[in-house]
Structure formats: C-alpha cells, structure tokens
C-alpha cells in the first residue's frame, strides 16, 4: 500500500537503507519543520505571551471606569452560558445547547436548566468555565 510506504518515511523507528535513508531523513526534517511552524503559530494564536500586557490595560480601564465587568457570555461546543452579577449575586444562565449540562466550579457542581438563572459560587467573573454534558464530555467555555 502506497500510504504505508509513504508514512514509513516519517517513522524514526523504521530501518531505511541507502538512498531511502536519505529520503527518510528528508521526510523527518520536513516533519520537524512543520511541527516548528505549527508550534510557533499555536503559541501566538493562543496568546501565550500576551497576558502580561492585558493586566495593566485592564487596571487602567478600572481607574477610568471604576467598575468591574458585571457579565459575560462563555461559549464552546454549541453551549453558551451567560454569567452575570445581579441583586441575587452571581448567576449562570444557559442560553444555548442541550439540557442536562452542569458547570464544574472548583469542587462544586452547578446544574444548568436552559433559560433559568442559577446561583454561581464565584466572587468574580472567571476567565473560563468548565461545562460537562450528560454524556460526561467536557467543554472549556471561553468568552
């Protein structure tokens, strides 16, 4: 099978002889170059080194605004949850996604009912929230 022949060139454990060893070495170098490019891209797109710049910007916004964020929507995997601070404290409202999901907040579980606000045991808006659906699949919801 030609796929096996091709993929074998990228296998560092495979034994290649003669000119084929050079082809395999070329393939491994190509694999490494691709990995290098993808890793550098992933760290940039993930904002790995951007965080430090956000803090003072946010702090200065507070100085001008003098209010914390009071609400935010978090989404992933077809689910959206609105977390907001109201008179009853912090609440979470599922606005999209199938029923039966729960939020994991520290050691606590918050059972969601679509469209209904439920109490959230948080003191500030989180950066992300972890949602677990009925099948146990986990989603990291981000703003």
């Amino acid at each position, binding site marked *: *099978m030609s796929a096996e022949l091709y993929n074998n060139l990228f296998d560092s454990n495979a034994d290649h002889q003669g*000119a084929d060893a050079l082809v395999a070495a070329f393939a491994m170098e*190509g694999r490494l170059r691709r990995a290098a490019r993808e890793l550098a891209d992933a760290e*940039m*797109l993930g*904002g790995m080194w951007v965080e430090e710049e956000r803090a003072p910007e946010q702090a200065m916004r507070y100085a001008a605004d003098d209010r914390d964020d009071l609400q935010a929507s978090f989404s992933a995997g077809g689910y959206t949850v609105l977390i907001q601070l109201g008179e009853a404290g912090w609440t979470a409202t599922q606005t999209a996604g199938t029923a039966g999901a729960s939020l994991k907040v520290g050691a606590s579980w918050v059972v969601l009912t679509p469209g209904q606000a439920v109490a959230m045991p948080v003191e500030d808006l989180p950066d992300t929230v972890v949602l677990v659906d009925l099948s146990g699949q986990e989603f*990291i919801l981000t703003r």
Partner: protein
Amino acid sequence: MSVAACDMVNPTASEGMTMEDTMPALVRAFVEGGQSAAELLSEFMRHVARVARPYPDAYFVLSQKNDDAVDDLGNRAFSICASIEKGRFPFSGRAPFSAYVEEQFDGRTIRYHSFYAKISITRELLRDDYAFNLRRDPVLRWRSELYADIGTVLKATCESVPQGKGVPPKWQRTGSGLRMLQPLEVVEAKLRKLDSPSVEVLVHEALSQAGPLTQSRLTHLLEAVLGTPATDEVEAGYVEEHTADRLGLREAVANAWNELEPADQALVIALSKGASYEELISVHPSLNNKVSASRAVSRVGQLFLSAVVDAMGIEASADATPRTLMEPIMSMLAELFPRDFS
C-alpha cells in the same frame, strides 16, 4: 499613572489631562513626506520593547534575548510597517503604515495592529524567529519533535475540542466520563512520579487529570516532566559548517531538481512540508499507487538527494548525519522555489 502609560492605553481617558496622541501624525508625516522617521522609530522601539518583555530567549535571534536582539526586532517591525505589503486584514495588500493613513486609524488602533494585538506585526516577527529557532537550535528541535510526537498521539487516540475561530483546539480523551480535574502543577508532579518515557502514556495521563489541553500546552508540560536534553546530547543541529560552498549547493540542487519528473517533485514538496499521505494524494493522485510511489521514492533518493550529497561531498564531515545533511538542501529548495517550498 504616567503620561506614557496612559497614552498607550487610552489617550483620552481622563478629562482635564491634555494628552495628544502623536502616533497618527508621525505615521502620516513619514508616509507622505518621509519625515519624522527618527521620532516614529523611537516610538516603535519603546512599544516593541514593552511587547517583548514577557517573551523568553527562544523567540529572539540566536535564541538570545538581549538589548541588541530587541533593537533588531524593533527595526525589522518598523521596516515591515514602512515597506512590506501585507495581504491580511486590515492591510489588504498595503504596507501597514500606508494602510493606517488611508484608513485614518487613531493611535490606539495603530499600536494595536503594530504591537499589542495577538496577531500584530511585532508578534508575527517573534513567531517567525521562534519557528526558525525551533528547527535550528538543538534543544528547541527536541521540543519540535516532542510537539510532533504529541500530535501523532492526539490525532490517533483523542478528540479535539474546538475553542473558536483562530484559536488552537484543545484535546481530550474520548469517552472519559466524569472525573476530578487537577491543577497543572499537581498533574506535572504526578506525571514525574509515573517515570514513563512514553509520550502516549504521559499525554493520556495528563488529559485524564488536567482535562482538555492544547497541543502546545501539553508540549510544555511534557517537556517539564521529561526534561530537555543537554546540548551535547542532542544531534548537531547547525549545518552551516557543511555548506561553505553555497553556490555549489545551489547548482547541485537546481541540477538534481531538473532531473526529477513531476511526480517525484510532488513527493519532494510533500516530504519537505511534512504533509500527510492524504495531502500528497490530493495534489498528485497518480502517487496513490504502490508502484508509482515506490518508484518516486527511489528516484528522489537516487537522482535528487544522493546526487546533491555526492556533488557537495558533504557526507564526509565527521559529525554529519542524514538529518543534518537535509537542512541545507531544504533551505536551498526554499530559496530556489519559494512558491513550492516556503
């Protein structure tokens, strides 16, 4: 709050504080009359230094973060903004400075696209330097290989969890059910206790205990657990010493390339990009045949790679390995045929 800091974030934040944002006027003067270059460059250096602050050595030229490297970064960012046409939003085929003037961007927006955005001119340069170091620096090459190995495990045994447009996906174990998630520091300690060299075992354990993670986060986690090799333990990564005769290499690569048939060339391009078999076949369907593929591999080995290595006599070097021989050939291909190999 310092005036400079305020200017960086919101030049009109507070009433009563008169702060003029000079950036738009500086850019306009530079674009329209070539004036204020020194002042604009000085502003650039200040912001680039600020953006560069959290980045580690691996993101800088020669994997060394120092004043010269940061200055070099600032100068290159300035040059790109001044004269390199960029295709992506919001530049649309214009040099960034020209786009800023034509779109009448305010200072904050200019700084955002030049320095502070997740995808800014400055951060793209840092990304490119990091990618270069990841394939040239001996220890960082090890990180790239680890990233590739982790990718192989993830694609074969885990499922991706999309995180939104433009954000790398996270990965999780399939059908893992409910479990207690652990902080990454705890997971790292537990992985160390496993004392396993198997990337697959470590990846699965990490995802089971920490929950969904990105491939890059897993790479740094496993790197911390496994420990990077000392520089004298890794394969020699720098190859310039083998390629003193660049003109000879250029000629050897060009000649050997011309000996190849289209299918052979398609194979070389796919291999150089680390392309999957499916990607290769989509470009050159005739290679979806064992005889054709085998023939192409043989021809690439004999007519191209062996021919170049023989012509250059670079296999004789005592510390040359097949992989260190390939780097200069690949770089030369990118130089000769940028559309196919860059």
